[in-house]
């Protein structure tokens, strides 16, 4: 298996607080890797640095050997690393379908001026985006809500739309920050299937999640953070049996982890 993403000695300090301390690990192509840890462990911070929404204090992130840390976020998105947000983030006043269509922007062949004058390249782009958006709606089984205003959707659909937005960019790596948050069991299991099928689209998935049963079910490998430190790394089975992990979780007040 080949490595697609390398996190090399990444550190992030907020003043005196060390949110990530010297984190290193590798992500294989097309795997689903989960980052777990108690609240405040630094998971979201790590994702923000991988997607370049935040600068690293030191260390670097490599995508297929090329450094992507500390570039502009839209450039990193263009290179194929796309993050969905911990807070459900969508374009509220657009319909579901328009949300997905606009997220195809990266795939444009036409430049902005072409879109303005309606050049044939631009019109081809539009047709292709619409076609691909319909395909994504179907893939995620949300065709029936395509014309609904995004602001009116319930949680479950919002999360699905978030993933659709991410997929529309045609990413190499999709970073999902708590995609199952606020979902009931059935919704979560549906989402787990969905995320697993995303991998079949040639996408590598990095996931932050608190729902342990979902994490254990879905992940190929797991990385555990605690107080900004990477304390363990391995398969779901290895992590479940790892003494340090159990201690860290039992020692913390956050025992929602359910180990």
């Amino acid at each position, binding site marked *: 298996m080949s490595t697609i993403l390398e996190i090399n000695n990444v550190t992030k300090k907020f003043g005196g607080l060390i949110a990530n301390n010297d984190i290193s690990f590798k992500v294989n192509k097309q795997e689903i890797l989960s980052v777990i840890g108690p609240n405040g462990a630094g998971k979201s911070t790590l994702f923000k640095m991988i997607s370049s929404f935040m600068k690293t204090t030191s260390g670097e992130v490599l995508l297929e050997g090329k450094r992507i840390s500390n570039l502009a976020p*839209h450039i990193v998105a263009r290179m194929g690393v796309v*993050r969905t947000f911990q807070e459900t983030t*969508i374009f509220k*006043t*657009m319909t579901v379908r328009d949300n997905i269509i606009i997220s195809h922007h990266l795939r444009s062949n036409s430049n902005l001026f072409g*879109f303005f004058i309606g050049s044939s390249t*631009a019109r081809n*782009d539009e047709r292709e985006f619409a076609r691909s958006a319909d395909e994504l709606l179907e893939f995620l089984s949300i065709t029936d809500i395509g014309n609904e205003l995004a602001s009116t959707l319930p949680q479950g659909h919002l999360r699905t739309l978030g993933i659709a937005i991410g997929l529309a*960019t045609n990413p190499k790596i999709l970073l999902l920050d708590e995609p199952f948050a606020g979902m009931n069991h059935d919704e979560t299991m549906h989402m787990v299937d969905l995320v697993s099928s995303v991998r079949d689209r040639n996408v590598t998935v990095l996931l932050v999640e608190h729902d342990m049963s979902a994490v254990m079910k879905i992940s190929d490998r797991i990385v555990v953070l605690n107080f900004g430190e990477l304390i363990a790394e391995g398969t779901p089975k290895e992590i479940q049996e790892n003494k340090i992990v159990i201690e860290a979780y039992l020692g913390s007040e956050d025992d929602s982890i359910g180990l």
Partner: protein
Amino acid sequence: MSKASKLIYFFIFLVTILGIVPWLIEISGRWDYYYTLTSVALLSIASSGVWLTFYIGRINIGQGAYALAGGYVVAILVTKYDVSFWLSVPIAGLFCSFVSMLIGASILRLRGVYFAMITLVLTEVAKLTAMSLPITNGAKGISSIALPGELSIFGISIIPDFSTLANVKLAFYYVAVILMIFVFAGMYRLVNSRIGHLCRSLQQNEELASSIGVNITILRIIAYSISSFLGGIGGAIFISISQSVYPTTFQVADSINFMLNVFVGGMGYVFGPMIGTLFIYFGWDLLFTTGKYQLLIYSSIIIALILVLPNGLLSLRIFNKSNKREAK
């Protein structure tokens, strides 16, 4: 709305402002309305720029600065360098665009009230600059600017020299409204193209926009520079009518008015600035008879309007038949 009915509305609009309005003015003898309507057209062009900055989620209270700068560029080019008015106007627009890119590169990062405050200061800075530079002639300003000369392309005269015309007011009226038609048609196209969708994505969530690969910095600068271009050409033609420009031709109050035109017309509608400018300009004029209470009544009406119709005049039902795009 179907394409056919859009074309019909557009045609009615054209016939009205190019034919019926001048005809009504001729038969009623109210020549002063040419000036009023020309001003409305030009100010609505500048307001349309402000509208675009609103569309990317920025409150722009600095359009007066660019209108003033555009005015001075034309005044200087025409009086000092003998450049044709017809060439000077686009140069004025481009000059404003360029300046706004430099300014925008640093201030467009700011949001909400911070951006608004800085743009508010811009108008004052423009005024002080005009007062102090030798080329702008200080507080005395620049006057006796020649009327627009002949415009000919390949020796064929397209627009006659204004000074030979019997009715200069009518000529300016046509220039202003035709330009307005082009500007609003362009803006309509812009907003309904992908660029418009991208601007809306910016307005709603800049972080998400950049995570789907939108270069938000460039897009903001493009929108702001188009806005300033429109401010520049609007101001440039405006001062050419009175043939003079002073540091006070466009002031903070004008900047605020550009913004109000957008608010009152409706921020969700491309044609909002046109309706808003017409309403505000005429509203102010009509209240002239109320003397010293003019400002009080005017302000009260505007405040009431914003409270009662937060989405602007175009959100009224009578308009909504033809403006459903937003709500669809």
